[in-house]
């Protein structure tokens, strides 16, 4: 387990994500209420609860991490009503495409995170600094790459990514939103942490926690 992460980790990560998102449901709702439409916490909680129900109902255990991530992707797309559905759906789908292997080493974890970021950017067309999920994902990927280049373990790569995502989410507070629903608020979006960046930080924290 120490040297690589397999399907058990992918399942544990997914279940832990559902738990963490559920625990932070009210916080996400409140963040989204301030600068969005208030549905992010509810939508994600519902989406990940549906993912867990799907996992519980599987006739056979998933074969590899990619299979788990694909299940997350398709379920989120079908059950999350806001922009988060297509955005996380695409992120997980792209990540699933590069994780169809039994075990992920540090570079495999980096590839997973890079594919996720690419999916979000491809779908949402946001750039860093626009007060979106991208502001958590981008530093997470950068930190993961740096850690892997220094020979870190997969768990350490995820820990670095999670920490960078958390800092990135916090750094969205002073930003002016120019993408997504918050952009309708213009200057009033300043001073609030972006809910999408916050949920990204939670998801990556769950990934790190379950890999440790």
């Amino acid at each position, binding site marked *: 387990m120490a040297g690589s992460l397999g399907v058990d980790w992918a399942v544990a990560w997914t279940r832990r994500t559902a738990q963490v998102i559920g625990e932070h449901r009210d916080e996400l709702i409140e963040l989204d209420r301030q600068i969005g439409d208030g549905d992010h916490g509810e939508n994600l909680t519902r989406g990940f609860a549906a993912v867990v129900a799907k996992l519980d109902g599987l006739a056979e255990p998933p074969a590899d991490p990619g299979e788990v991530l694909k299940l997350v992707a398709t379920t989120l797309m*079908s059950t999350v009503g806001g922009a988060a559905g297509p955005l996380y759906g695409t992120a997980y789908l792209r990540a699933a495409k590069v994780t169809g292997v039994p075990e992920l080493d540090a570079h495999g974890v980096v590839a997973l995170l890079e594919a996720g970021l690419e999916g979000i950017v491809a779908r949402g067309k946001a750039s860093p600094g626009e007060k979106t999920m991208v502001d958590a994902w981008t530093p997470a990927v950068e930190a993961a790459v740096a850690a892997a280049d220094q020979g870190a373990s997969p768990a350490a790569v995820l820990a670095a990514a999670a920490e960078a995502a958390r800092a990135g989410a916090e750094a969205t507070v002073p930003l002016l939103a120019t993408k997504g629903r918050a952009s309708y608020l213009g200057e009033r979006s300043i001073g609030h942490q972006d809910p999408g960046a916050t949920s990204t930080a939670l998801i990556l924290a769950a990934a790190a926690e379950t890999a440790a």
Partner: protein
Amino acid sequence: MTAAVALVLVSHSALIAEGLRDLAGQMAPGVEIVPAGGDPAGGLGTSVDRVTVAIEQAAADGRQVLVLTDLGSAVLTTEMVLELLDEGVAARVRLADAPLVEGAVVAAVEAAGGGDLDTVRTAAERAGAAAAPAPDEVTQDGPAPHEAAQDGPAQDGPAQDRPAQDGPADSGTISGQVTVKNPLGLHARPAAVLSRMMAGFDASVQVNGVNAASVLELMQLGATQGQVLALSATGSQARAAADAFIGAVDEGFGEI
């Protein structure tokens, strides 16, 4: 008979999508219009599954499909669906960058008139420009003299994209006048009837300075009962188009 182009209306609100289906459908009989509003739990939001089903229904029988959306995540959801759809179906679907309500009305009328997918999409996307602030020089008292001229008012969007307005110099211009007779004036249904009718002629018809083949521009005239409309038409069927327009207005659209 069903039109070759169907519409899918993606809104965060099921009520908006369904209401708009009714509104646009009233003006475009025979056009398949499928609403896809609301999130998977029946609340406000958008649903990949719902949009997928709607597009597949709209695309049945080989129809082409124009999708119109409201706010951001409706666009994301639709793009996601198009990526996941069977390629044979996705190839017949386009996403319009158009205002939802005006775009759907214009697209429905255009589709009812037999327009192909590109024509319907272009018409919908131009609805944004036509929806600009109403012309203040069109008064309830009838047209000011310059409005009957061929060079339409400047507020009506990208003039270079419109049917040629400068046709054969003077010689080919047919002018006429008609008084609005029906009590409700040129509301949505008559405007749709007229614009469809005008689209069928090889002619460019201006009424009070706006394009008579544009349902939105006709509606925005806000012409009420008793108002005089000044008409000028050019093109090979200018006479027939002008006569048809005057005849239809004169008959009061079955409301008198």
